[in-house]
């Protein structure tokens, strides 16, 4: 392969393409869209996080302002967890619009995470959202195909291909050169996007960036670079293997449709069909039944709690719960909370496992569809993927459990066994306990967790990158000139 020649061909392709007026129109439109996507992502980040922090504070203030009271009242007063948006969600909205953002955390009960953007949608969300990631994943490949389809097929039609080959250029030079030129063109959009994003993240007052986030950023830049490289090579190879440029165009558009629209949707639907997941009614009633089996702390005749009572009385060598050194009601509730949380968590993990299986069908198509690979990597690194959704739920539930148990323990410690009711001023404990209990704080998981959860997509993209160069080499040996 002649490096000089390859670069010459790349340059020639570059300058030739930039002579055409429609290309400028496309570039202009894309730039406007990207600018809007960035603005809109940033706006959404600022507005939503402002709203959520505001209410997190308000709810907290209200919590701390509670007067002295019975701790079980505080267990029911409960707290809220509001999900915060990751700074990189400006770039990729991922699944965020479809996951709930707020959950009420109280004793005995695991509430659903409510108020997703989708639940406020009028139906337009069905058409998707404009984010920088969405444009880079769906629209730019289309533009690359629009520009690339004629790259070699048109030279073949006009006869210039023969001239190039007789003048000493090898097929390898031409294919690599054109791919390089094409990649250069796509970098024309790619570089400004990431430079502006960089500046935005760096300079913005409302975003604090740590090392972890910079690694995420670099990961995203890398993933998209390789993705574009793959897409550029595909467009050149298809153009080279087509008789006419019209054929090449049709083939490329069909590929785009299959990769970007049809395959992701059908495989997700298929995963959903293969691994059916329960409805809430089904989930709840299964849990309720199991809870009854395990022991119902609300049922006065329940055998589990009778046995528990006997053993506790025996252990403390007393004949009545009134003589126990701690509040027995708090003790029973602590036990009940432990049991019900165990059962809930087991069922929830089963449910999440089913969801993961549903998603796995589409995930594995990354090996035949580079779009899926980059989509999953991009979401994971932007903190808007399935794992982030799971992580929020887990953190909220962990906090809920801690809160309920803390209140139960306070009750055991400070409330007398003569207490009959949690109402009013009797049996109350100091409000300093409420203030002491920390507020919920959502933690994004680290970049290494994100990478681990998307390891298959990363391998798929790596294979695609290597294979696309490999294809050029294989192809250049077999291709026909005419």
């Amino acid at each position: 392969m002649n490096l000089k020649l390859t670069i010459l061909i790349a340059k020639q392709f570059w300058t030739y393409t930039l002579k055409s007026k429609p290309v400028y129109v496309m570039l202009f439109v894309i730039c406007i869209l990207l600018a809007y996507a960035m603005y809109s992502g940033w706006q959404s980040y600022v507005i939503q996080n402002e709203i959520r922090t505001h209410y997190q504070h308000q709810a907290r203030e209200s919590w701390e302002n509670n007067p002295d009271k019975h701790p079980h009242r505080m267990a029911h007063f409960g707290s809220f967890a509001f999900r915060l948006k990751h700074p990189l969600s400006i770039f990729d909205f991922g699944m965020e619009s479809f996951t709930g953002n707020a959950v009420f955390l109280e004793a005995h009960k695991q509430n659903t995470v409510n108020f997703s953007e989708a639940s406020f949608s009028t139906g337009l969300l069905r058409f998707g959202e404009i984010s920088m990631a969405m444009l880079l994943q769906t629209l730019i490949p289309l533009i690359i195909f629009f520009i690339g389809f004629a790259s070699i097929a048109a030279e073949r039609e006009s006869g210039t291909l023969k001239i190039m080959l007789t003048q000493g250029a090898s097929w390898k030079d031409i294919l690599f050169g054109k791919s390089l030129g094409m990649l250069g063109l796509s970098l024309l959009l790619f570089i400004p996007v990431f430079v502006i994003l960089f500046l935005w993240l760096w300079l913005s007052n409302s975003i604090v960036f740590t090392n972890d986030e910079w690694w995420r950023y670099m990961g995203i830049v890398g993933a998209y670079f390789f993705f574009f490289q793959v897409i550029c090579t595909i467009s050149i190879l298809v153009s080279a293997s087509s008789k006419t440029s019209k054929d090449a165009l049709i083939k490329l558009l069909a590929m785009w449709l299959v990769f970007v629209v049809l395959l992701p949707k059908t495989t997700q639907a298929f995963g959903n069909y293969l691994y059916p997941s329960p409805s809430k009614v089904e989930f709840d009633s299964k849990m309720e039944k199991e809870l009854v089996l395990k022991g119902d702390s609300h049922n006065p005749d329940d055998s589990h709690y009778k046995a528990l009572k006997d053993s506790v009385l025996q252990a403390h060598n007393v004949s009545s719960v009134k003589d126990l050194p701690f509040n027995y009601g708090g003790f029973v509730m602590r036990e009940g909370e432990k049991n019900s949380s165990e059962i809930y968590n087991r069922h929830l993990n089963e449910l999440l496992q089913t969801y993961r299986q549903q998603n796995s069908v589409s995930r594995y198509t990354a090996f035949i569809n580079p779009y899926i690979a980059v989509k999953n990597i991009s979401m994971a690194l932007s903190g808007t993927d399935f794992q982030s959704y799971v992580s929020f739920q887990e953190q909220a539930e962990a906090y809920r459990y801690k809160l309920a148990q803390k209140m139960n323990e306070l009750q055991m410690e400070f409330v007398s066994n003569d207490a009959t009711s949690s109402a009013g001023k009797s049996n109350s404990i100091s409000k300093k306990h409420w203030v002491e209990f920390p507020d919920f704080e959502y933690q994004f998981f680290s970049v290494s967790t994100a990478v681990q959860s998307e390891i298959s997509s990363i391998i798929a993209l790596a294979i695609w990158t290597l294979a696309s160069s490999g294809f050029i080499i294989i192809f250049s040996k077999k291709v026909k000139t005419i």
Partner: protein
Amino acid sequence: MFSLIAKQFIRSKTVIFIFVLILIMGITSILIGKQFLAKQEKTIAQVTRQQEEHIERNVAYHEDEFGLLMYYLRFALINKPDKLSALSIGQRDINPSLQSVTIRNLEGQKYDTDLNNPANLQSGNLDFGFVIIYLFPLLIIAFTFNLLSEENETGTWRLIAIQSKSKIRFLWYKLSIRALMIYASLAILFAIAILALSLELNGSLAQFIVLSVLYLTFWFVLCFWVVSFQRNSSFNLLTLLSLWVVLAILLPATINNFLANKYPVPEALSTMVKQRDGYHKKWDMDKQETIEKFYAHYPQYKNYTDTTEGFGWMWYYAMQQMGDDESLEQSNAMREKLMQREHASRLIALAIPTMYTQLLFNDIANTSLGDHLAFQDKTNEFHEKTRLYFYPKIFENRPVKSEDWSQFKPKYFSKNTDSHPLKLIWPLISIITIMFAGIMMNTRKI
């Protein structure tokens, strides 16, 4: 000549392949709709059984305290899906079709979602509406983009120019054979849908079909208009596909972002916080004060008094009631905000056929945001009725056994489906007419 053109068209292997493909996609989408309906029906059956068991068990546990029993009991209201929702699932996968509520504070229960895999929601349903809105236009583009240009490019146009009386009539023939085939496949798919889902042949279905046909006509007219500029095949294909991307993806998605940011819904969170504080803080307040507020809302209960020292059920439910009463303003503001979104998107949709058709499909199938809001309103009514029914019984602490518990079956809500807005198809018809005029101008020169 017409039959010759038809033969020439159908003989192509690619054409057959594309038709088979669209039929497969169409049938898949109908099966997905069927699966959706089946899942909903299964849930309905489950909730009916579950409610019966649930009431039985709790009645047995809490025989002697009506107030305590009512703390636990849940009553379901079901938003029964219209069969047409299988064709256009709309917002039905996101918003629950079922509310199972206790008579306690409703604002704390009303917004609970169903369990959903967010990845499924993100990918969206491959329903028949999707096939019509996204895939059929692509089919139309594939069959019409080179209607005229292929004749030019293969050199047959001159022959036609010499041999046929009217070149433009030849083009119309070519177009109509393609249109006929595409409408026929749409008809086949509708027939399959009717059989597979045992759809009722009613006005709603007719509206759905008319809307589909008009929408496809819009695309035919758009394609023919582009073709009538007599550019080459690649140019036409690029233009049409770009139009598809703009109309089916970019424009609606941009508008979606715009509306989401223009109308954020902080009211949802304020409702959530307010209903908690409205109820829970009453525990620390004077009992009589809360009961007075309750009397102010429901003067009919003034003859009941809570004489117990400390905790009493009347006080408890009065406190719960305050959760709803004090968050009413926030809750209404939230509904108002959602209505603003609904109005804005409908207004914009008038000019964009893809969005317009999607929203109208959802309307016809009762799967829009508006339908969900109507269901929530109905839930308010249902909840109010249930609690007013039980309040006196709780306050009097009637014997639990005196109630006929078997009568509490899940209730159904279905929206009146007669008044569908087919008169609203004028936006599509006007767009079609304008483009048709454009075609006539262009074809005069051919």
